[in-house]
């Protein structure tokens, strides 16, 4: 599923809304999450998951082609951790290997 497919599905479900507004809504959601992360904040959507920013220390990397050492500066990376409900849904969908089954072992 791509962003435009998501927009198309929402448009089909909400015929009373303008396609333009649906695009704006979807855009707003991801823009807001991005803005919060760039402010260093976390975004927590219960059941779905949480977006956070993790710090990576500076390290010495290597150019894989030449083997030459290159300094890699400290940086921030966006991180997503799936919420319990979504995690279970994703795992449960595999036939015969649900979360419940694993708990019985």
């Amino acid at each position, binding site marked *: 599923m791509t962003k435009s497919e998501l927009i198309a599905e929402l448009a089909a479900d909400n015929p009373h809304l303008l396609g333009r507004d649906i695009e704006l*809504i979807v855009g707003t959601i991801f823009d807001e999450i991005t803005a919060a992360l760039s402010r260093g904040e976390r975004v927590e959507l219960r059941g779905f998951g949480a977006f956070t920013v993790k710090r990576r220390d500076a390290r010495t990397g290597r150019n894989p082609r030449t083997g030459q050492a290159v300094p890699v500066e400290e940086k921030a990376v966006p991180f997503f951790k799936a919420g319990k409900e979504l995690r279970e849904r994703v795992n449960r969908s595999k036939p015969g290997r649900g979360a419940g089954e694993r708990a019985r072992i």
Partner: protein
Amino acid sequence: MQTVTRAHLAETIYTQVGLSRNESADLLETVLERMSAALESGESVKISGFGTFSVRQKGRRVGRNPKTGVEVPIMPRRVLVFRPSQGLKAEVNGLTPPVDDDE
């Protein structure tokens, strides 16, 4: 640290798009539900400029209770992974995101 929640996102939709508060909250919920349903069916969700959510199959492996050292089998499972786009990575580092961001 500040935490942004559903309520904040719904409020932003309300102010930016001009739907009612209720409808804004409902739409947000629908977006999350649609994405969840796609992922549940094993389909990836690709949001250009933001990132890609995908489902990865993990094989069976032997784990260990870190406290007791007892070996426990970890059954094959499916996990969700998020790969941020170049643009999101750049934003988080306070850089201008690259123009071409359609990975």
